[in-house]
């Protein structure tokens, strides 16, 4: 039967029940589509904003960690100044591995705003316990590295030109500096430098000590003792006295050389029962190579934040002698990771 429209009355033969039955659920489907599209959009925007917020938090945490790590260097500067102001027992000025400055310091921190925790660790190492890179002779450098040619190249790099030393044909080209090293990383430029030798040189030698400054016998490493020409017996004597019965990691029973010069031999004679007077080892130990105090230190300050996980390390070299304007301590080098 055909449905007819009654134009005379203006009304239609419209049957809502049938119409609704015909389109049953279409509005619901439309609404669900709309909700789905809006939900997808909301999730996408939420994820985008979440990523941006996380990036901003990471950036803020990195800035905080950097500021914290930098502050650790200045904290260390105060520690070495305080150590210099307070002489050791007997009024003597000596530095050793059990000194106040040598103990690593860990400080827990908390952000006042977010409450997030972090940690600052400050470790100070003695640069006077390393072989002076600018005054060590070729023999000492060869003994340390085990490489005669490299030792010669290191000496050639810092001393006035005395032979054809440049290699402009290399890649990259090499030109001897003919001046003292000012940073340990400079040894990287020396031809044929290998990663193991680079590591040995950067950990066992130091370009920061002034020419006449001796090494500290209380902190110098066994490798450096061997490099300067001490016999294995003398090296073991020094190490055994320094480390004491409690071993190298504890310092309560350490032996300390409290005075340089002939007092070193007297200490070894009294404490270890061995007299090195008049021997080649004895002469080296009382020479100007060694003393018992330190003026140059390396500070490694590392700040770690837990959430978000961020770590920043600052390594600095500080000196507490010969600073400009008679300052008690000054910065010599600075490296930020």
């Amino acid at each position: 039967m055909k449905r007819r429209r009654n134009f005379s009355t203006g009304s239609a033969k419209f049957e809502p029940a049938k119409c609704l039955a015909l389109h049953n659920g279409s509005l619901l489907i439309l609404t669900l589509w709309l909700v789905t599209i809006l939900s997808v959009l909301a999730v996408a925007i939420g994820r985008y904003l979440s990523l941006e917020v996380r990036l901003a938090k990471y950036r803020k945490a990195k800035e905080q960690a950097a500021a914290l790590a930098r502050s650790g260097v200045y904290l260390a500067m105060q520690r070495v100044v305080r150590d210099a102001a307070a002489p050791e027992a007997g009024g003597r000025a000596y530095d050793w591995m059990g000194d106040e400055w040598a103990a690593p310091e860990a400080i827990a921190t908390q952000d006042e705003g977010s409450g997030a925790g972090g940690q600052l660790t400050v470790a100070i190492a003695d640069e006077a316990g390393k072989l002076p890179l600018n005054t060590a002779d070729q023999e000492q450098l060869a003994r340390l590295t085990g490489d005669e040619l490299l030792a010669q190249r290191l000496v050639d790099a810092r001393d006035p030109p005395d032979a054809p030393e440049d290699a402009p044909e290399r890649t990259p080209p090499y030109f001897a500096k003919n001046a003292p090293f000012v940073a340990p990383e400079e040894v990287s430029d020396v031809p044929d430098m290998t990663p193991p030798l680079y590591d040995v040189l950067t950990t066992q030698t130091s370009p920061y000590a002034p020419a006449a400054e001796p090494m500290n016998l209380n902190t110098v490493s066994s490798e450096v003792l061997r490099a300067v020409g001490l016999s294995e017996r003398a090296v073991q004597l020094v190490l055994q006295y320094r480390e004491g019965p409690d071993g190298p990691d504890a310092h309560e029973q350490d032996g300390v050389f409290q005075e340089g010069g002939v007092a070193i031999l007297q200490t070894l004679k009294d404490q270890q029962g061995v007299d090195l007077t008049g021997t080649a080892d004895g002469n080296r130990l009382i020479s100007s190579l060694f003393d018992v105090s330190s003026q140059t230190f390396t500070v490694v300050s590392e700040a770690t934040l837990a959430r978000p996980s961020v770590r920043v390390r600052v390594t600095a070299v500080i000196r507490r002698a010969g600073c400009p304007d008679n300052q008690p301590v000054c910065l010599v080098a600075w490296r930020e990771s």
Partner: protein
Amino acid sequence: MELVVASTMMAVLFMGLGAHLRGGVAVWQRATDTTERLQRRRVALDRLERDLANSLLYDPRPDAYGEGVGLLPAPTFGGEAMAWVTVGPASPGARPAARFVTYRCDARDGVQGLWRTSQPIGAARAHLPPAPELLLPECEALTARYAALPEPPELPLQWRSPWGSGVTALPRLVEISLTTTSGEEARRIMAIPIGTLTPPPSE
């Protein structure tokens, strides 16, 4: 009649929603562009700040620098460009070494931006052309000022430009302003911890 009303309402609703979505997408796009631009600027300034912090007073002898082969280009802390020796790896993971770096905003190969060059000391001594790296494409101008102690030193810090050659003394504080092609300016004060506030003598 109800269907007409419902359709009209839905049409109005969809038109409004569409307009808002279009506006939202435009804002989102603009926000993303701005964020990326700021990120690029921040990364460039961070790179510059790290190179400055790790600076090295490589050789205090003025005769070690020059144009001849074997001589190192002189470190320069100028008003619009900087060149100096810093310590860093050539690439991530490589061992650190002394490197000669330069920063300048100019056009290279038709591309305007903040350009950084970095090369080993040997390559710089040989005066080999370094490979430039575009740090910030929209950089129009770089302006640098350097803090200096006034006379008497009790007065506030003075800012001067240029600093000088940087052969005998590195600046302690550097104020960097980057002006972009859109006219925006980014300014940051950076520290060279081993630097000094006493400028080198005029050349």
